[in-house]
């Protein structure tokens, strides 16, 4: 007889395989619609855009961020840049003040109130039809904005267009692992875009029609994930979010395990709590694939990691216990046992094949993501760093996020 634990295990595996197959089928359906432009493009019209750069203690990166905006292939008179110092305690204000004499740049300083308040200050001063933000640790590719705007030109229903966020440099293993993850993220985001089910409009360079904020209100705290909350709100109100896969924005990612843990804890906490806030739309077909696929998929991922981790810890505990018992009973043996590999002992339970199929589909997603971002096919070393690093650390930030939600503890930004 199959135990209740095994039953749950197989249900979670079924759902995980389902999600991956769903993405694959979406890819097969829409593969010809994925366009990657290499050269410069021109628009019929160049609408005016306001871009806000909220800064909080970003003295090391903000200058490069602003320069990347100034280097954008977009008419300067159509681009307004708001640099907003959100009460930094370092020299961020001094750095951004260097740009105050530029005709299309305005510098603001305010008391620290959180990123969403800085973005809202930008919104208050926005008198253009399009509005966007760019995190002060991210750098826009010169062609990114014009490519994003081409989506608005092509589709009048598009209310927001998100770019492909990729890693600016990947010096160490932690960053390399994230590089593979971000590349995969580009593929998943494109697939979610085809489903009309994007759940995050990333801080780095998502461009919105100003109407979105006029209709739905400004940014909210959103459990420190204001870019997720606004996407949820847009989906709830049936506002279309597009993804411009060939608009690249490079972002700085955490370089240490501790920083990565803190960032992901904030993201997952944001996902859990925004999903709780918007729970009424779950499984309601009038909210489309976002309610029927994206949100349940996120919940399934958390449950699967949670369950698998508990199972691994339980098995590891059992193994250690048996070793301690063995040590107690027969003592420690210095004899090196001759080890002969016998294929008989290879586990062939059905879940092994299913787990392999999940890994296969995830690697496939990474390869496609790499093709979409780096233009290269095939495996990379970054993918091999991804699995061990994320398998080991991810359960901890997931569990901590669940724990914080239960105890209503809010994680810090950094």
């Amino acid at each position, binding site marked *: 007889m199959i135990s209740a634990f095994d039953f749950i295990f197989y249900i979670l595996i079924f759902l995980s395989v389902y999600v991956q197959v769903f993405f694959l089928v979406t890819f097969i359906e829409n593969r010809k619609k994925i366009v990657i432009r290499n050269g410069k493009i021109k628009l019929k019209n160049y609408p005016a855009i306001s871009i806000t750069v909220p800064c909080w203690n970003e003295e090391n990166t903000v200058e490069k961020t602003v320069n990347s905006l100034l280097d954008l292939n977009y008419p300067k008179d159509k681009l307004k840049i708001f640099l907003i110092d959100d009460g930094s305690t370092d020299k961020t204000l001094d750095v951004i003040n260097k740009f105050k004499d530029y005709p299309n740049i305005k510098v603001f300083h305010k008391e620290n109130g959180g990123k969403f308040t800085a973005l809202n200050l930008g919104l208050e001063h926005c008198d253009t039809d399009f509005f966007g933000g760019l995190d002060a640790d991210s750098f826009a590719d010169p062609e990114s904005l014009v490519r994003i705007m081409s989506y608005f030109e092509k589709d009048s229903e598009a209310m927001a267009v998100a770019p492909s966020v990729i890693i600016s440099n990947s010096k160490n293993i932690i960053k390399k692992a994230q590089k593979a993850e971000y590349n995969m993220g580009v593929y998943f985001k494109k697939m979610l875009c085809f489903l009309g089910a994007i759940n995050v409009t990333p801080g780095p360079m998502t461009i919105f029609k100003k109407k979105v904020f006029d209709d739905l209100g400004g940014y909210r705290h959103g459990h420190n994930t204001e870019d997720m909350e606004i996407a949820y709100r847009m989906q709830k109100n*049936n506002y279309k979010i597009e993804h411009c896969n060939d608009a690249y924005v490079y972002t700085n990612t955490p370089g240490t395990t501790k920083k990565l843990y803190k960032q992901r804890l904030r993201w997952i906490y944001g996902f859990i709590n925004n999903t709780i806030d918007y729970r009424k739309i779950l499984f309601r077909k009038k909210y489309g694939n976002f309610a029927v696929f994206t949100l349940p998929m996120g919940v399934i991922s958390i449950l699967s990691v949670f369950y698998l981790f508990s199972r691994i810890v339980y098995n590891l505990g059992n193994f250690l216990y048996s070793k301690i018992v063995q040590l107690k009973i027969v003592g420690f043996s210095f004899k090196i046992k001759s080890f002969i590999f016998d294929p*008989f002992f290879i586990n062939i339970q*059905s879940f092994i094949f299913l787990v392999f199929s999940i890994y296969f589909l995830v690697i496939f997603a990474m390869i496609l993501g790499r093709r979409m971002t780096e233009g290269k096919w095939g495996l990379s070393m970054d993918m091999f760093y991804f699995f061990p690093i994320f398998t080991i650390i991810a359960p901890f930030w997931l569990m901590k996020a669940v724990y914080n939600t239960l105890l209503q503890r809010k994680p810090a930004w950094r």
Partner: protein
Amino acid sequence: MNNNIDWKKYLIVFFITVGLFVTAIYLSNYFGNQKINQLKTIQDKIAIDILSSETQFSLLSELSCKSISDSVFSSELGELGNKLEWSQNNLGATDEVSYLKKYYSLLQIKDYLLAKKISSRCGTKSAFILYFYTTAANCSLCGQESLVLSTLREEYPELRVYSFDYSTDLSAVTSMLQIYKIKDTELPALVIDDEVLTGFHSLEDLEARVQDSFKLQEALPAGDIKK
């Protein structure tokens, strides 16, 4: 529009996922059957070896102990035991695994009887332990005793341990349980030199008994027994 849900796609993906599950189950069963067949082949080989040794022994009687084939003392029986145990844990206690386990118990008894006969007639250095256990969850000591016996077997290659699952539904095993008056409440149980020991026995305790068993043999026929 955003709120368009393609239910047909959800259904197709469902069937593809079910298809992957069915394939995984098929592959699992296919390789499981391959393993069962492998076990059957090993058992058949051991059965032939034992039968051959028995026949050889009967033919040659006491004339030439040296001519007795070593194959009966091969480690294949132990290897088969390990594989059967693994199969029970990983493939489940299916009818086929239970059948193979019965067959294995029978082979062990035959091997025991033959090895004992050869040992007493030819004076080969050997000691025998019959070990009765249960896979029931309430017998934590059974697992511990198995560890002790595995260690002991590694230290004394001449020691032959025969393990019997108490719940094996085989008349030969039942007869052994009756002969040694072993009850399921007293497991694990061991038989060394016809002495029945119940409950857990430590490595030191059993080691001393095994060494005594070797000495006993030394005292009887003149054998070349090294300590």
